[in-house]
């Protein structure tokens, strides 16, 4: 769900661009507080994996496909602020090198997929961990559920942007919102399955490196459970 140029008006797109740039700065500063050298390869590999996985559109409905966002995946692996950075890096590369996602819409895409899906989805994961038994299995299940929810959450973000500043003024914004959210609930099932599988594999081999797991041995910017 990469927004092309033209769906959202230029003013709102520019504001989102500034917001995304500011959020990038905040994320850099926060990630700096906990990102130790041993997490650097995992963070960079997360960006490459999210890029590669986003190339795979899987069929969802007749005539419609979906692909991984990878926000919760990245945020659970390397923390919400580094997860935001992972998505921002992927989106910039996709827009500048592969003409995927509009240049003027880059800020909107970073806010929706890095802000809402990665950071927002991370907090869903954290809440679920808080009410779980905090086993390795609950990390995997929580990541899957949070990932599944992060997709309609990001779609709702676009729906709000479209209602405020969409260029198609003759189109019903509420109809767009509901159909978009409903279809992205379905796409979210794929997101949840892929995220759970990857988090399961990494937690299985290096439970000490996974930021969103109780077994993580590094620093966090917030406690895993409140």
């Amino acid at each position: 769900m990469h927004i092309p140029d033209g769906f959202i008006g230029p003013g709102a797109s520019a504001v989102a661009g500034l917001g995304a740039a500011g959020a990038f700065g905040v994320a850099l500063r926060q990630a700096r507080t906990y990102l130790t050298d041993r997490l650097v390869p995992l963070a960079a590999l997360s960006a490459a994996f999210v890029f590669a996985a986003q190339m795979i559109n899987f069929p969802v409905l007749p005539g419609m496909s979906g692909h991984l966002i990878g926000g919760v995946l990245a945020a659970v692996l390397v923390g919400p602020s580094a997860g935001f950075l992972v998505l921002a890096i992927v989106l910039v590369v996709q827009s500048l090198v592969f003409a995927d996602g509009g240049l003027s819409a880059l800020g909107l895409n970073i806010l929706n997929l890095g802000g809402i899906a990665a950071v927002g989805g991370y907090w869903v994961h954290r809440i679920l961990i808080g009410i779980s038994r905090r086993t390795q299995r609950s990390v995997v299940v929580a990541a899957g559920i949070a990932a599944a929810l992060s997709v309609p959450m990001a779609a709702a973000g676009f729906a709000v942007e479209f209602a405020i500043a969409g260029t198609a003024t003759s189109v019903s914004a509420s109809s767009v919102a509901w159909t978009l959210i409903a279809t992205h609930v379905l796409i979210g099932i794929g997101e949840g399955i892929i995220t759970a599988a990857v988090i399961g594999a990494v937690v299985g081999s290096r439970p000490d490196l996974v930021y969103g797991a109780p077994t993580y041995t590094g620093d966090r910017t917030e406690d895993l459970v409140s």
Partner: protein
Amino acid sequence: MTKNIRLAVAAVAVIVLVGVVLSQFASSEPDGLEFIAEREGFADNADEHTLADTPLADYGESGVSRAIAAGVGIVVTLGVGLVVFKTIGHKTTTPESES
């Protein structure tokens, strides 16, 4: 250390498998946003991407061009990721948290 390198190599192998091989079988149907834009009648509001005529636009068609696009994308995201995260990465400051 060698175990870490082995894991990193395994991760790169999985990433290449996903991007270069599995992406050849990706569905070419419109994604959720494109699908709804067509259904609700605002798909035409999309402007063509400024860089739509560049060689790697839309990740190549299929086959070799798509494999090359995937390879380039993996190298670039990994490279940019390493630069960005190396810049902010630091030595562990709290030795007791290192197990």
